[in-house]
């Protein structure tokens, strides 16, 4: 297992590097550089050249990439062109907010979506199943920003129970986490139901029944353990989303997380920030892919041996 993980990690290094290089090339080779965006309409060619030189943008792209990579290897993600903050600091201070939001949404959608999916599967084809899956389908098909706007309209403007936006305490977390989580509840519940039904149809479930095991135990011991495997893998693959998945919701709720940083960085071409974010997302994607496989292996002995 350990050897497998090490091997996978080593193989993923060129992938991450490739992603960052491509991102770098795209950033630098598409027209419109930070200088034009920063200096505005009165920028003289001299002022532009001066700023270009100051930011090191006058160097050939590959030289810049090499310099960037060198710095990254020394743990230096660079400095934001806009805020003059070290990029790691800029990301760090926002990451905690984004994680708080996305993890709340993620965990609660898992904690709600999975039981609902199991419940619907256990009550397959009954009214309870149809109703809960109808709701899940609705959650799943509406975009999160729609929920955001509706939740604000109902709970903030009409009922006045919860604040509209901001991040000043626990009650500020409720609406954005809900808006972000509801579509996820829908997709997780649907997936969990489908996987559970599939396992319930497997012959080993019949075997368990023929052994005299109670329905309850069959569900929780035999069925769920198997149905959990693809669901867990899916959830792990979705985890990089924790970092980047809340841009729209963060904007609607003025949540001071990564969303705004990412949005501003892209809008105003804050290259060092964009590069760092892409690097982090690439690493996380690779890591969580691996983690998903490891978890699948832990849950499924058939995979483990291979």
């Amino acid at each position, binding site marked *: 297992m350990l050897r497998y993980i090490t091997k996978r990690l080593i193989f993923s290094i060129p992938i991450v590097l490739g992603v960052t290089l491509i991102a770098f090339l795209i950033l630098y080779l598409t027209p419109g550089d930070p200088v034009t965006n920063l200096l505005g309409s009165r920028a003289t060619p001299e002022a532009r050249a001066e700023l270009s030189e100051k930011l090191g943008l006058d160097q050939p792209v590959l030289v810049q990439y090499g310099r960037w990579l060198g710095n990254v290897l020394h743990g230096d993600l660079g400095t934001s062109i806009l805020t003059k903050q070290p990029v790691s600091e800029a990301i760090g201070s926002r990451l905690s907010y984004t994680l708080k939001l996305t993890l709340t949404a993620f965990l609660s959608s898992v904690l709600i979506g999975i039981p609902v999916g199991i419940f619907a599967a256990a009550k397959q*084809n009954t009214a309870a199943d149809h109703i809960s899956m109808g709701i899940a389908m609705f959650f799943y098909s509406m975009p999160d920003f729609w929920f955001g706007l509706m939740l604000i309209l109902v709970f903030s403007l009409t009922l006045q129970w919860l604040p509209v936006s901001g991040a000043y305490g626990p009650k500020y977390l409720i609406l954005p986490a809900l808006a972000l989580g509801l579509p996820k509840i829908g997709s997780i519940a649907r997936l969990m139901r489908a996987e559970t039904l599939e396992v319930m149809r*497997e*012959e*080993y479930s*019949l*075997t*368990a*029944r*023929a*052994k*005299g*095991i*109670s*329905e309850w135990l069959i569900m929780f011991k*035999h069925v769920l*353990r*198997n149905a959990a*495997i693809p669901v867990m893998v899916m959830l792990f693959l979705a985890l990089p989303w924790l970092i980047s998945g809340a841009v729209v919701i963060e904007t609607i709720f003025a949540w001071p997380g990564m969303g705004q940083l990412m949005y501003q960085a892209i809008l105003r071409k804050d290259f060092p920030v964009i590069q760092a974010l892409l690097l982090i997302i690439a690493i996380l994607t690779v890591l969580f892919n691996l983690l998903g496989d490891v978890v699948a292996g832990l*849950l*499924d*002995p*058939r995979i483990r*041996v291979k």
Partner: protein
Amino acid sequence: MTLLEIKNLHLQFQSDEGLALVLDGINFDIKKGETLGLVGESGCGKSVTGLSVLRLIPTPPGEITEGEIIFEGENLLEKSAKEMQNIRGGRIAMIFQDPMVSLNPVYTIGDQIAEAIDLHQPKGITSTWDGVVEALDSVQIADPESRAHNYPHQFSGGMRQRGMIAMMLSCRPSLLIADEPTTALDVTVQAQVLQVIADLQKELGMAVILITHNLGVVAESCDRVAVMYAGTIAEIADVEKLFENPKHPYTRGLLGAIPRADRDMNDLAIIEGSVPNHVNPPKGCRFHPRCKEAMDICRIEKPTDVDLGEDHIVACHLYG
């Protein structure tokens, strides 16, 4: 002494095409320690008969609408869900055709056997673990101590089926329903698995319902045999009697088409015509469209069971 008696059992399934009467009033019984072969073409209702006994028919879409299943003097159809759980795996066990899919892939063989033992607490076992090892040993798995820690995928097909048998018989049931236990296995290991069942049957004194396509298996392993056709039982008799002197036109057709008894029924289109569907079955005798001896009455009236003596029962108007 009768262990199990099935009386006038009706089973129907709600399907897309309509209501399918899958078992149309079947009757048979089995004595303690006896082996009853249950044969018939694919889809005739062998498996659902076995599942009905354990009340494992998925409901909906299936429903037992009529009849009785008397086991050790009690009607199983009147048992509560809880009581049925005690009977399943404890007093009546069932094993299935494909050992590759009938064991849970994420638990070890030992765990799965232990689960049954813990549940039913059979007498004469000192500890769960001893029971597990003993059960594996009884199905001739070498090195049972360490093999118990293996997962199903680490077993070969034959071993898996033996593991399955070990699990199901670990609680010493008085009836085993074996639904084509060797069909999915290599020819070379089929005999071995059947032998394991026969040995344990002798040791535990249990009765076995052996569902199979293979008449050779029937000839070798069974005391009596019931021939099913499209949800009905055509004929029941002692093995020798049935092979020597089949009475039902369907049985006769079967045996006539298969000169050597070790052939599999499904290998041949034995009798012309196709198996009727259960939604709109032929009126009267369900076999009449394919029967060379069909009479007018056969198209109108369902034949009843006729006892020809010495436990030879046939359902055919020829003997009415």
